[in-house]
C-alpha cells in the first residue's frame, strides 16, 4: 500500500472539487474493494477523500419510487422493509453477495464502483491492459475461469463482480451523481461500460463524480411477486458468481406482460438486452420461450478456454431462473 493523505469530506460539492483538481485523489466509502486493491498496489491514490460522514445514508420514498442514499450500507438496504416488500429482487441479490461483514461495510454507491474481476488484474507480476494500458491481456490466453464471455474485447475479458448491480440493471434503476461541474442522472444501463479498447475504464463517470443516490423506479414494484436471483458459484456462499441471473416477470395470469433478465459474472457490466426481454412480451411462461430468451442473450458469446462452460451454464441458468420466477419461486 502506498502512502496517502486523508481528509474527511464536509460536503459533496467540495469533495468533488477536491478530486477534480487532484487526479491521484480518490473517494473512499465502505473501502471494501478500494483497500483490497490498495494492498495489492493495484490502486495507488495519494489522497483519500472520506465520504462516509456525508448525510447520504437514507432510504426514502420519492415521487419516482424508492431512493437509496449512496451511503446506505448493502445490509441496511437488503433488510429495509420497503426494499424487501417492493424490490425483493434487490434484497435477494445483495444477500447473495460477499459476507455479512462486508455487506455491513459496503455502501450502495460504492458497490457500483467495484473494479472488475480477473486474476491478472490483481497480480502485478503479470501484464494487464486494465492496470497498464497497452501491456497486453494475460487472461485471454491464460486462466480465465472467472472471466467474461459477452461483450469482451481483444484487450480485456474481465467481469463485473457485483450481485447488487445485476438486480439494479434488471430493475432499470437510475443513478444520481454530482461532480465538480454539477449534477446529472445516469440510466443504469449507461453507468458501466464494456472494455473496448479502454479497459482501464470500468464506468462512464468522470473521476470527480460522486454517486449521491440510486432511484428504484416505482414501476419496478410490478416484479415483486415473480422474480428470482439465481447465483451459481464454486461454493455455497462467500464466492463471486460464475454466472448469476436476475429474472423478473410482470405476469397477468399465465401470460408475461413484461420480462427483465440481467446476467452477472459474464461481462464487464451487468448484461441486459431489451430484444431478448421483448421476446417474452405477451407470451406464455414456457421452457421453449425461455430458451429463446437465453439464446438471444447469449448471442455472440465467446469462450476463452477455462470459461467456455459459462455459455452453456448461462443458458441453463436463464431458463431455470425464468422458470422459477414464473412459478413464484425466489
Amino acid at each position, binding site marked *: 500500500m502506498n502512502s496517502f493523505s486523508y481528509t474527511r469530506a464536509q460536503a459533496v460539492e467540495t469533495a468533488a472539487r477536491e478530486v477534480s483538481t487532484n487526479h491521484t485523489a480518490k473517494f473512499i466509502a465502505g473501502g471494501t474493494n478500494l483497500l483490497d486493491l490498495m494492498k495489492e*498496489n493495484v490502486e495507488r491514490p495519494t489522497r483519500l477523500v472520506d465520504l462516509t460522514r456525508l448525510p447520504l445514508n437514507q432510504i426514502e420514498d420519492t415521487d419516482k419510487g424508492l431512493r437509496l442514499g449512496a451511503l446506505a450500507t448493502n445490509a441496511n438496504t437488503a433488510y429495509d422493509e420497503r426494499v424487501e416488500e417492493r424490490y425483493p429482487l434487490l434484497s435477494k441479490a445483495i444477500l447473495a453477495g460477499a459476507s455479512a461483514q462486508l455487506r455491513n461495510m459496503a455502501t450502495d454507491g460504492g458497490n457500483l464502483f467495484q473494479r472488475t474481476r480477473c486474476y491478472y488484474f490483481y497480480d502485478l507480476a*503479470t501484464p494487464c491492459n486494465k492496470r497498464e494500458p497497452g501491456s497486453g491481456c494475460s487472461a485471454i490466453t491464460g*486462466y480465465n475461469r*472467472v472471466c467474461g464471455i459477452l461483450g469482451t474485447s481483444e484487450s480485456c475479458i474481465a467481469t463485473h463482480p457485483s450481485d447488487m448491480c445485476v438486480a439494479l440493471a434488471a430493475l432499470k434503476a437510475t443513478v444520481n451523481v454530482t461532480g465538480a461541474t454539477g449534477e446529472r442522472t445516469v440510466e443504469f444501463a449507461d453507468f458501466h461500460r464494456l472494455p473496448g479498447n479502454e479497459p482501464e475504464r470500468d464506468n462512464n463517470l468522470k473521476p470527480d463524480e460522486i454517486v449521491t443516490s440510486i432511484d428504484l423506479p416505482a414501476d419496478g414494484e410490478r416484479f415483486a411477486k415473480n422474480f428470482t436471483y439465481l447465483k451459481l458459484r*464454486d461454493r*455455497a*456462499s462467500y464466492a463471486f458468481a460464475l454466472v448469476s441471473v436476475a429474472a423478473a416477470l410482470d405476469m397477468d395470469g399465465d401470460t408475461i406482460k413484461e420480462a427483465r433478465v440481467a446476467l452477472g459474472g459474464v461481462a464487464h457490466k451487468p448484461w441486459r438486452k431489451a430484444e431478448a426481454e421483448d421476446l417474452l412480451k405477451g407470451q406464455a411462461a414456457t421452457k421453449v420461450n425461455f430458451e429463446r430468451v437465453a439464446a438471444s442473450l447469449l448471442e455472440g458469446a465467446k469462450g476463452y478456454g477455462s470459461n467456455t462452460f459459462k455459455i*452453456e451454464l448461462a443458458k*441453463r441458468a436463464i431458463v*431455470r431462473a425464468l422458470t422459477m420466477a414464473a412459478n413464484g419461486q425466489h
Partner: protein
Amino acid sequence: MAATTYIGRSTSRVDGRAKVTGEAKYAAEFNTPGLTYGYVISSDIAKGKITKIDASDALSLPGVLQVFTHENAPRPAYFDRKFKDDDSPVGDKFKPLYSAEIQFSMQPIGLVVADSFEVARYAASLVKVEYKAETPETNLRQKPKGHKAPTGKTGFTPPKSRGNAAKAYKNAEVQFEAEYFHMPEHHNPMEMFASTVIVEEDGKLKIYDKTQGVANSQKYITKIFGLSKEEARVINPFMGGGFGSGLRPQYQLYLAVMAARELNRSVRVVLTRQQMFSFGHRPATLQTVSLGATKDGMLQAIKHEALGETSRFEEYTEVVVNWAGMLYHCDNVELGYYLRNLDTYTPLDMRAPGSVTGIAAFETAIDELSYKVGIDPLELRLKNYAEKNEFEGKPFSSKELRACYAQGAAKFGWAKRPAQPRSMREGTKLIGWGVATGMWDAQQQKSAAKANLSVDGKLVVGSSTSDIGTGTYTAMTMIAAETLGLPLDAVTFKLGDTTLPVAPLEGGSWTVASVGSAVKEACEAVAKKVFSMAKDVKDSPLSGASFDEVEFVDGKVQLKGDYSSGVSIVEAMRAGEVNFIEEETTTMPNMLKQMQYARNTHSAVFVEVEVDEDLGQICVRRVVSAIAGGRVISPKTARSQILGGVVWGISMALEEESVLDHHFGRFMNHNLAEYHVAVNADIHNIDVIFVEEHDDIVNPLGAKGLGEIGIVGVAAAIGNAIYHATGKRVRELPITLDKLL
C-alpha cells in the same frame, strides 16, 4: 469410576478459554519494545536470474532500516546439509537471498526491514528489479518427457510387485482401466506463517515461530547460523493450523533471524496470504488404475501407477500407490511411482499426504468396477477384504474395518440404496449415495517428556510437541491427570518450547501415540516415587503392596478398587520430605513387537449428495464417517479431528485447486477469494462413529492417531455418490459444476 478417570470421557479443551478470549498468542503476536517489521519481496517470474535490483528509493524512506537482497545479505552457511530439516526431501536446499537465480514464482528475493509494518510494506513496493526470464515448465500433464522413478535415497519407492499383474489382468473376466488426476492444493492454515525474533539483552534470540516442531526450527537455525541451543530458543505455544505446512521451517524464519542478527534488532516477519502460495503444496498427481476381476467381483489383478511432481532441486515423494496393494486381497499387484521436475517450489506433506490422493483414485476405480460386475460397492469391498498386509505378509495389529462398514452402513441406511444410478430424484435435484474406504498409518516415534509434581498436588508436564488445533494440550492433560489420579485443573501441560524435552514433529497422526506414551511414562515414574513414599507413611495401608497392586485415583494412591483406604499424594510427599518430584523420560516405540505387525487406521465413509440436474451444483447433504482408530483418548477433540477431516475431504472433492498459469509458471488464484476452501454453508450433517478397536501393539495407550484418517476416502465417496446421482463419472478433482454440465 473414579472422578479422575478421563481417558475416553468427553472433556472440553483445556485451552478453550484462552482461545475464546483472545488470550492465546500466536507467533506474530508477541510484542516487544523496539520491534521492527520485515516485509518480503517476492519474485514476479518463475525461472531466470535477477540482473539488477535497486532499493535506493526504498532505503530513502523514513523508517526503513535495511533492504536485504542477494547482493547484500549474509550467507551464513554454505553446505546444503546445514539447511536440512526433519522433513526435507533429498536434494539441494533453497537458501533465501543467496543468489540471483530464480527457481520458482514468488521466490523471496528481498526483505525490507522498517520500524513499522506499513512503512516496510510500502518500501517493498519501491524496490525495482530486473530479470532475465526463462520459460518455466510447470505443467505435469504436458506429454511426459523425462519423468523418472525416485532415487529412493531418503525418499519413497513402492514395494516390489507380487504375482504377475499384467498376465492376470489380461486373463481376467472383467477388466477396468482409467486415468485420474487431481490439481495441486495449498494448505492455507488460517494463521499466516510468521516469526517474531526477539533479541534479548545478552544477545540471545527468543524466536516465536509458526511451526509444527520447535525442535526442527531450532535445529535449522542453529545449524545455519552456528548458534548453540541456548542462543536460539524457539517457542510456539499456539499454532493457527498446520496441516503439514509447518513440518518444514518456512523462509520467513530464516529471514527474520538473519535480519535480527544483522541489525541487532527484534524483527517480525509475517507472510501475506498471497505469499502462502509461495512454498510447499500438495502436488498434482496423474494416476492410472487397472483392475482385473472375476465376474463375481473377486479381484485378480491390481495395477496402480502415479506420476507426481517435484521441484528442480529436491525430490519430494509420497506414498500414493502402496495402498492399492494393502486395501484388498489380491494375488497380483503391480505398483509404479514416478516424478517429474517442475519449476515450482518443492511440494510439501499436506494432511494424509499420498494416501488421500492415491486412495481417492483407487477407491473410485473400485466403485467403477462395482458397476461393471453389478455388485453393490460395499459388498464388493467386503468380498475382497484384506485380512493381512499382503505386501509384508504381516497380520494387522488390529483392523476393525468390517465394523466400520457395518456400523456406518447401518447409521447411513445403506441397505435401502437402489443399485441403478439416477434412480433418486427430488425435483431438479438428483440424489446419490457413495461409499469409500480410508486407510492411514498408526505410527509411534521416539519422544521425551518431563513431569514435575509439587507437594501442593500440582503437576506440570512438558514436552516440546505442538498443538496445531489437534487437541494435544487436552489429551496430554487427560493422560497425565489420569495417570497420577489428579483433577484436570491441577495439571498444566506445556508444549511448543525448545527448553522442554524433545518431541517429534507434530505430524503423521503420531502425536498422541508418541508424546502421550512419553507423558504416561514420565507420570508413571513420578507415581513410582510417590508410591515408595506412600508406603513409608506411618501405618501405611500400602506397606506390603507392590506398584502393580495400586492405582492413583482422586488425589491418592490406593490398593486397586479399594476406595476406603489409601494415602494422599500430598501426605506421601510430606512424609518423604520433598517439595517436588521431577522425572524426565524418553520413550521409544517397542520396535521388536511392532515390526511383526502392520499397523494402520481404517475408515468407511458414506456420503449422500444432491446434484442439480441442469446446473451441476453439488451439495453434500450427509456424511457418515466410521473410524477404526484404536482407543479414543479424548472423544470430544477426537470427534472434531474427524469432522475437520471430513470438511477437508468435501473441500478437496469439490473446491480446492491451485491453478497454475503455465506461461508464467505462477499460481494465479493465490488468495482466499479465488482459492476456494469450504465455508460454513457448504457443510451439513456429518456423523462420526468410532468403532471399538482394541490394540496392545501400536503403543502403550492403544491409540492410533486420528489427524489424517478423517480426510482419507471422503473425496472418493463424494465422487462415487455423484456418479450414483447422475450417471456421470468425473475422474478429475476438484469436481466443479462445469464438469457435470
